[in-house]
């Protein structure tokens, strides 16, 4: 944290509370979310946007280039539109063709770049991109909504509001690959640029420009069908369309594999919450901002649909929580001393985890000066965290484990249910999967994604070693414990690095891990489609590039409440 950090009298919440899977699976977007950091910055810095190429035929096949120009660098989305047979349309990673494919180019591409990308981007994982590209992605149409919107516009009508609301987007992206994947530039190449310093800014920019392309494409397809009578999509309806995303298991291991980075995300949000809870009072303006956004949050909850039983239950609780929160405000207001802390203390006893995390995020809204600067603390620049201090003694390591992994030591790992699952990587698509350890032949291929079990095993293995022996001597002969020891030393310095739950139990819900990461991206309307993949909305309500300069670049995430 920066040295000028405000004094907090309320401490950050304990990792024991924060780092449980059920709570991580209840996180909401907030001021620090990566999409909002990006749109705020682009507005503040006066970024300009242009569509330099749009060569798409009447069948929807061709390419387009959208360029975002910042203060020192330009970034261009190179989009390829395809005519995809319906039977090939799948959001899953096992797909090999898509409605549209994209690369984010670092700068402004020339004709040679376009031809190079045309040969590689449409085949996604089967192609190669270069250090000039920052991301690789694809999207599929929402068949229902796409056809409806094209048909309505071509007939000279606006699309039906109910249809728009029930789906929320015209296309869903699936994987958005960045950071050196498939030949793209490594993060280190761009990390020093101020606009790329926060996590995932290139990927978020790519999706932002993709949404504009998709709006233009649907208009183009309607025009091709309807000719002169075609209606222009109402800008307000267009703004209510986000871009969908389907996220599968591939994302879940990320937060386990990047413990320092994940710590920094959680720590930034927890610090922001602590700062707001520590405020002695709230001004009338701040209270008005909060009340206004609470009403809009209720509108967001109303527009959040899911068919998944778990999420249906959680949404029911969220609705009840928002009612209770509104009633509480009516009763007690925010006039007393340390009003946010009082409200949050109440919420911890009265609301579900969905409601508590929703409130935690909402409370930050009136305080950009206290919160937004923390956005720059969310990347991981500490490469030395990887190094093991082998001079630490056996007894010191055991003590660290007892302090930071008491939750893992409390699990009976000999119970088959505690180890029912195993994370592995499949041969056919090289993507992470979750298997049944005792029913499928996957245990030999297990990835190191069960830190709780592995640290508990390390703790036991150290029990008969000489207390004062440096742990390096132990590791020399027992290299199988090296990854677990590294995590212990990281967790000792980074309190929010580790999920305090069993990631391989028979009850683990990978969607909880997905939601934690996606909430930091700024996603809304989580709609699990099973226990291991989820659909979300991105940029729903956000101004389009040509609207950004004068639009709401920050609280667009909350729909306007009905008055």
């Amino acid at each position, binding site marked *: 944290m920066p040295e000028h950090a405000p004094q907090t009298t309320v401490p950050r919440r304990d990792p024991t509370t924060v780092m449980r899977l059920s709570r991580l699976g209840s996180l909401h977007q907030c001021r620090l979310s990566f999409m909002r950091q990006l749109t705020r910055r682009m507005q503040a810095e006066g970024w300009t946007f242009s569509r330099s190429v749009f060569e798409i035929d009447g069948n929807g096949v061709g390419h387009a280039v959208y360029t975002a120009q910042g203060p020192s660098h330009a970034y261009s989305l190179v989009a390829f539109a395809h005519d995809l047979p*319906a039977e090939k*349309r*799948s959001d*899953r990673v*096992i797909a090999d063709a898509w409605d549209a494919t994209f690369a984010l180019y670092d700068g402004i591409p020339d004709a040679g770049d376009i031809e190079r990308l045309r040969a590689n981007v449409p085949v996604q994982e089967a192609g190669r991109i270069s*250090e000039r590209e920052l991301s690789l992605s694809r999207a599929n149409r*929402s*068949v*229902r909504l796409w056809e409806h919107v094209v048909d309505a516009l071509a007939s000279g009508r606006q699309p039906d509001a109910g249809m728009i609301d029930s789906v929320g987007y015209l296309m869903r992206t699936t994987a958005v690959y960045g950071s*050196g*994947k498939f*030949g*793209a*530039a*490594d*993060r*280190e*190449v761009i990390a020093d640029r101020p606009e790329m310093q926060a996590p995932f800014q290139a990927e978020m920019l790519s999706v932002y420009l993709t949404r504009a392309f998709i709006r233009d494409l649907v208009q183009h397809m309607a025009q091709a069908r309807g000719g002169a009578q075609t209606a222009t999509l109402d800008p307000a309806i267009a703004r209510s369309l986000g871009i969908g995303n*389907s996220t*599968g*298991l591939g994302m879940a291991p990320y937060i386990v594999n990047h413990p320092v980075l994940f710590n920094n995300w959680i720590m930034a949000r927890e610090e922001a919450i602590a700062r707001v809870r520590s405020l002695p009072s709230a001004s009338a303006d701040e209270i008005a901002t909060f009340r206004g956004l609470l009403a809009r949050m209720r509108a967001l909850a109303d527009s959040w649909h899911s068919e998944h039983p778990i999420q249906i239950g959680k949404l029911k609780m969220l609705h009840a929580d928002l009612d209770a929160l509104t009633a509480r405000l009516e009763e007690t207001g925010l006039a007393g001393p340390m009003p946010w802390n009082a409200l949050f203390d109440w919420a911890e006893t009265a609301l579900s985890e969905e409601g508590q995390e929703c409130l935690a995020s909402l409370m930050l809204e009136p305080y950009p000066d206290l919160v937004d600067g923390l956005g720059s603390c969310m990347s991981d620049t500490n490469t*030395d965290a*990887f*190094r*093991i201090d*082998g001079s630490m003694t056996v007894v010191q390591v055991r003590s660290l484990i007892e302090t930071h992994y008491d939750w893992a030591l409390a699990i009976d790992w000999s119970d088959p249910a505690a180890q029912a699952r195993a994370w*592995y*990587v*499949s*041969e*056919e698509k*090289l*993507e992470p*999967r*979750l*298997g*049944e350890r005792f029913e*499928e*032949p*996957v245990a*030999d*291929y297990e990835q190191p994604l069960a830190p709780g079990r592995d640290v508990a095993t390390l703790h036991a293995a150290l029990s008969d070693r000489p207390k004062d022996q*440096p*742990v*390096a*001597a132990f*590791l*020399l002969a027992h*290299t*199988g*414990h*090296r*990854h*677990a*020891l*590294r995590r212990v030393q990281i967790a000792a310095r980074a309190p929010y690095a580790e999920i305090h739950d069993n990631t391989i139990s028979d009850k683990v819900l990978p969607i909880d891990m997905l939601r934690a990461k996606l909430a930091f991206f700024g996603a809304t309307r989580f709609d699990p*489609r*099973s226990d*291991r*993949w989820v659909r979300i909305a991105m940029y729903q309500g956000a101004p389009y590039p040509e609207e950004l300069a004068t639009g709401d670049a920050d609280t667009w995430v909350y729909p306007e409440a009905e008055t």
Partner: protein
Amino acid sequence: MTDLSLNEVEATAKRAARGAGLSWGMAEEAGKAVRWLSAQGLPGCAALADLLDAPGNAPTSLDLLSSSGPLCPLAAGVALSDMAGRLGAGDTVLSDVAQPLLLLPFLQAAARQTGRALRVGIDGTMVGLDGAQVTCSDPADLDMPHARRIVIAPGAVPAPPLPQHTRAEVTADTLERLNRYAHRTYAPATEASRLLGAGAGLSDND
């Protein structure tokens, strides 16, 4: 030649090391080490592929002397880096080391950790590691399969620092050998795992 990002280098090296039988923790070290070498423009991928084809022996104690046969540079490297505080007070001598290039990332990490620059002699080729930069009068000489004697001492090696690289050019042969090892970490697909493991659920063609 394939042009790889350094992330790809690290991921490939880590999987290859794991596929060759190293523990996950050691495979992570191999990935970081090869990435660092590649960023210095040194042939880390080739050195790792050669090492996995002809592995060295792990030291049996922290003095790194009681090994029989060539020492594994990764095992010796982590032992030196784990006990970085011991390095640089006087001379540390290693005999009979396989793929000595792979030792350098660990010594650089130790130098960064302790703030003490190291001067490393590998059969007469001198390398300076100050925690940030690498100096070497003839980096091409570092591409050797084996070192008879390595002397690690405090001090510097006056020479221009090696330029930093953001990509690695890897030969088809090296990449193929690493990928063959890496492939051993992937579970063969079955129809059941395809549906179950990837997460069957509601239709996504809507």
